[in-house]
């Protein structure tokens, strides 16, 4: 499944990185600890988090992640969109809390 299909099925709002909407999702990783993500996420994963600062994009890019999802309607900090567009890694926003959106994504991609 690609990022666009997932965003449409789960009503996620696409904030930036539109050119990466065709990225194929290989799995998911849910964490708010950056060392956990850099150490354990796999390429192609969709990352669900409440961290909304620029370092999230740096990690997403270093790990070749498919997309980033913010929970609870959290909005990205201002300087995030540029990097998301440059790297073609979409930033999506969900109105659900983490447990709920993780469950939905898990069901959809497994």
């Amino acid at each position, binding site marked *: 499944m690609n990022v666009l299909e997932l965003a449409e099925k789960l009503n996620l709002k696409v904030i930036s990185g539109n050119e990466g909407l065709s990225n194929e999702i290989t799995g998911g990783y849910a964490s*708010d*600890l*950056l*060392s*956990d993500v*850099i*150490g354990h996420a796999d*390429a192609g994963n969709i990352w669900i*988090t409440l*961290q909304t*600062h*620029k*370092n999230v994009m*740096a*990690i997403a*890019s*270093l*790990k070749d992640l498919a997309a980033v999802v913010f929970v609870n309607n959290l909005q990205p900090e201002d*300087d995030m969109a540029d990097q998301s567009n440059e790297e073609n890694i979409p930033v999506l926003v969900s109105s659900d809390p983490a447990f709920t959106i993780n469950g939905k994504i898990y069901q959809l991609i497994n």
Partner: protein
Amino acid sequence: MFMNFEFNVEGGNFTKAGTASSQVKKILKQLNVDSKVIKRVVVALYEAEVNIVAHAWSGKALINISTDRIDLKLTDEGPGIPDIELAMQQGYSTASSAVREMGFGAGMGLSNIKNNCDELEITSEVGIGTVVQMAIYLNTK
């Protein structure tokens, strides 16, 4: 093949954290280095770079790529590490609460480094700075 690169790392500036890692990743990709090796370099270098940003004042990353290995040496001016064995323990962190709130400071950085290096040597002098020297072999299967 024998190449050297040097990057400055600014202490305290989180907006630039990961810049050196990102550049090195690009270089290694261009050199067609095995993707498994690139992944290990990225984790180790990112964590060492972030440690300078989070814990030290200023530093630099020296990257040396040869035919059989990649050597990464991060040298900083900073407070140093009084007890390296303690610092290596997963979960141990002296990061400020502001840094923790950003999701850094989980105390997993040095473990991540250890898990992704073939060689690791840390030396440190309190009040002076720290040297983290890492090597990752290129032809591991």
